[in-house]
């Protein structure tokens, strides 16, 4: 009987407790928690609500909100609804929305995924809009900024953030090693780069790879971080290798390609100037972490490096046979079946291409401006890197002789299958970096699989 009293009391306590907590929580969250989805539906007839899907986390959303608020000053009839998903889960969330018929009107995409989504028919072709737009003048813009959104010769998104890729170097580390700062406009060769790298790689006893006691497993500072992700293609072209040839094949087993891939792996395996998974796994190797002297990076890292207080500059990506530069932007895309195409386009254009919209991005260090008239703003920015180093970012894009992009031979960025190709290459690359294979061992296989992806979009 005592036990039954306890249980009744217990139940009552539980009920009272949850009621109290619920009331408390309801106060803390003033918006009606059970409100049906839809947010502010515009009054029938007037005004349009555009839904925006954000994959970039808090910071990106704040930037987007700033742009939206500015836009609404001149377009008060437009309402915005933001759905934010951060992290790599954005692809699933986006697809779930599409599958259920609740796709967003606009979303911030990644340059890796725009291709596959376009190939699947999710994005809207923006060429007709751009043509009809009087405010759009091709000459206002830096050349080549559209590449990562270009498929079959048309644009399927408009560039929103990022920029070109250069080598960022830590000036203090150069000073400590007694090496003069490189000139941002000078192109050095691979051999020269390795030489520099060797002087700038230090193990825990301050030995460099040139010293006899050097231990590659106990390195505290690396000379080089060659970007083996977005920047990888730069090294291929620099060696006269080709990723996608004009006839749609992928000569990943050519001698030049093999040489370049092996060279990349050897940076870590043989010369010890770059981190290699064979010797080290976790921990951040980056310019901003202060663990590498020369880091192949993109303009989107500027904010982060400055936050870390690094004293840095830039120079062009070293070459072997041909000088090459590269950069890309991640876009805003519009849903093909949106109910408000024109309004969606107008806002997207504002956020990406208009002077006012873009200025917000540039001031926050998110974007290397695609508009020529914002160039001075970018170059004269008080933050590091210094003006000549910032000029190098522009030179990378504007130099028609050196600028290359993967798929430029066929007019489609990576043929439209970048993400799929990346997933396919992953395991092979891991073995290469680990030193288990050399590229010639897997080249033919990788080529066959990649060409199949290019043709069908299917792995195996």
């Amino acid at each position: 009987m005592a036990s039954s009293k306890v249980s009744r009391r217990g139940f009552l306590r539980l009920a009272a407790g949850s009621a109290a907590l619920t009331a408390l929580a309801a106060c803390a969250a003033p918006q009606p928690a059970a409100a049906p989805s839809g947010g502010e539906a515009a009054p029938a007839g007037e005004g349009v609500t555009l839904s925006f899907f954000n994959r970039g986390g808090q910071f990106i959303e704040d930037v987007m909100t700033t742009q939206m608020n500015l836009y609404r000053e001149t377009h008060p009839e437009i309402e915005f609804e933001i759905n934010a998903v951060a992290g790599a889960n954005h692809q699933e969330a986006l697809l779930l929305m599409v599958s259920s018929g609740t796709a967003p009107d606009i979303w911030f995409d990644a340059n890796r995924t725009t291709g596959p989504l376009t190939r699947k028919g999710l994005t809207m072709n923006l060429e007709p809009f751009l043509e009809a737009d009087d405010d759009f003048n091709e000459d206002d813009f830096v050349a080549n900024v559209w590449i990562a959104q270009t498929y079959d010769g048309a644009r399927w998104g408009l560039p929103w953030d990022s920029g070109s890729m250069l080598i960022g170097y830590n000036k203090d580390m150069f000073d400590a090693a007694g090496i003069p700062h490189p000139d941002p406009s000078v192109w050095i060769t691979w051999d020269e780069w390795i030489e520099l790298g060797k002087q700038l790689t230090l193990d825990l006893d301050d030995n460099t790879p040139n010293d006899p006691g050097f231990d590659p497993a106990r390195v505290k500072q690396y000379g080089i971080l060659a970007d083996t992700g977005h920047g990888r293609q730069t090294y291929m072209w620099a060696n006269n290798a080709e990723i996608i040839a004009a006839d749609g094949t992928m000569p990943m087993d050519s001698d030049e390609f093999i040489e370049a891939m092996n060279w990349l792996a050897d940076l870590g395996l043989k010369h010890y100037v770059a981190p290699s998974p064979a010797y080290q796994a976790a921990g951040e190797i980056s310019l901003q972490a202060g663990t590498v002297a020369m880091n192949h990076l993109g303009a989107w890292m500027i904010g982060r490096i400055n936050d870390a207080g690094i004293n840095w500059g830039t120079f062009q990506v070293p070459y072997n046979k041909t000088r090459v530069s590269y950069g890309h932007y991640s876009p805003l895309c519009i849903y093909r079946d949106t109910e408000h195409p024109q309004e969606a386009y107008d806002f997207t254009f504002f956020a990406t291409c208009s002077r006012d919209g873009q200025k917000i991005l540039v001031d926050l260090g998110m974007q290397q401006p695609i508009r020529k008239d914002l160039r001075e703003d970018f170059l004269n920015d008080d933050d590091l890197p210094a003006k000549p180093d910032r000029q190098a970012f522009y030179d990378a894009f504007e130099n028609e002789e050196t600028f290359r992009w993967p798929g430029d031979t066929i007019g489609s960025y990576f043929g439209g299958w970048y993400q799929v190709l990346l997933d396919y290459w992953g395991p092979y690359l891991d073995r290469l970096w680990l030193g288990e294979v050399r590229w010639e061992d897997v080249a033919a296989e990788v080529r066959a699989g990649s060409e199949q992806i290019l043709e069908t979009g299917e792995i195996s």
Partner: protein
Amino acid sequence: MQTTAVPGTAVRPAPKPRFWQRLSFEETFWGWIFIIPALLGFLFFHLGPVVASLALSFTSYDIISAPRWIGLANYQKLVTDDLWIRSIEVTLRYVALFVPSALIASYAIAMLMARNIRGINIYRTMWYLPSVVPVVASAVIWRWALHPEFGPVNYPLKVMGLPSPRWLTDPNWIIPSLVFISLWGLGNTVLIFLAAIKGVSPSLYEAAEVDGAGPWAKFRNITLPMTSSIIFFQLIINVIGSFQVFGVAYVLFVTQPSASSAGPNNAALFYVLYMFRNAFGYFRNGYASAMAWVLFVVIMLLTWLLFYSQRKWVYYETEGK
């Protein structure tokens, strides 16, 4: 009187029938009433989607356009898919390593926790702490902890001159690393075993002591059987769960830009991870559904086998069916 041997009852002499066993209507009535919420939940939230996913497995569905019927093509393709075979390999390795170690380790720790040593509350909380850390943060932690040079795992190993593998980049060590990480979070299992062990009536132990039983005999003849129903639960849940392991590998390998997609040589390509990639990365949702259903059948068969084995070793208080 028992008619057939019923799963779930250990071998005991047939009990005397109680008089209310004739009130089968009342039992049936309440039996169904009590399971109504669960039943409704199943019908409403599961049945439809489950049938839908089965149907999808016979289609080609890229999510963006409508599904297209292709019959058994997905299943046929599976058999020739090297990555699928690989994912089975990887998952089986994980299951074989994880399930026994998880059960034994958590039970052993629960035994320790069950003692009334001074300060035991603190110890229990210390041991429970890891399972409380959100998955995202734990990925960051483990990438640091398993650093081959300075991580707190390898550093002492190196100092002692023992082999210190490259946990996250050596294909042979990835699965053990993931098992290790999963074991770190076994606080919940310990909790469940603790509740079970504590629930064993002290009078049983007293009676055994009177008979002169030592600690090992008490353990073997009282603790283990009396908690065997919970051990069984944990076994089933761990088997079902480890076949579908996903979260840890996902945050460790997929969501970091600088890490490889599924480990060197796909050493961490778990079944559900590969399935997930197919569904949302490669736009092959029909294919992914086929994968899911194959896994379902395998798990179901295995679980059925385990349930069948219950009668050999699991002890229940309930008599009758």
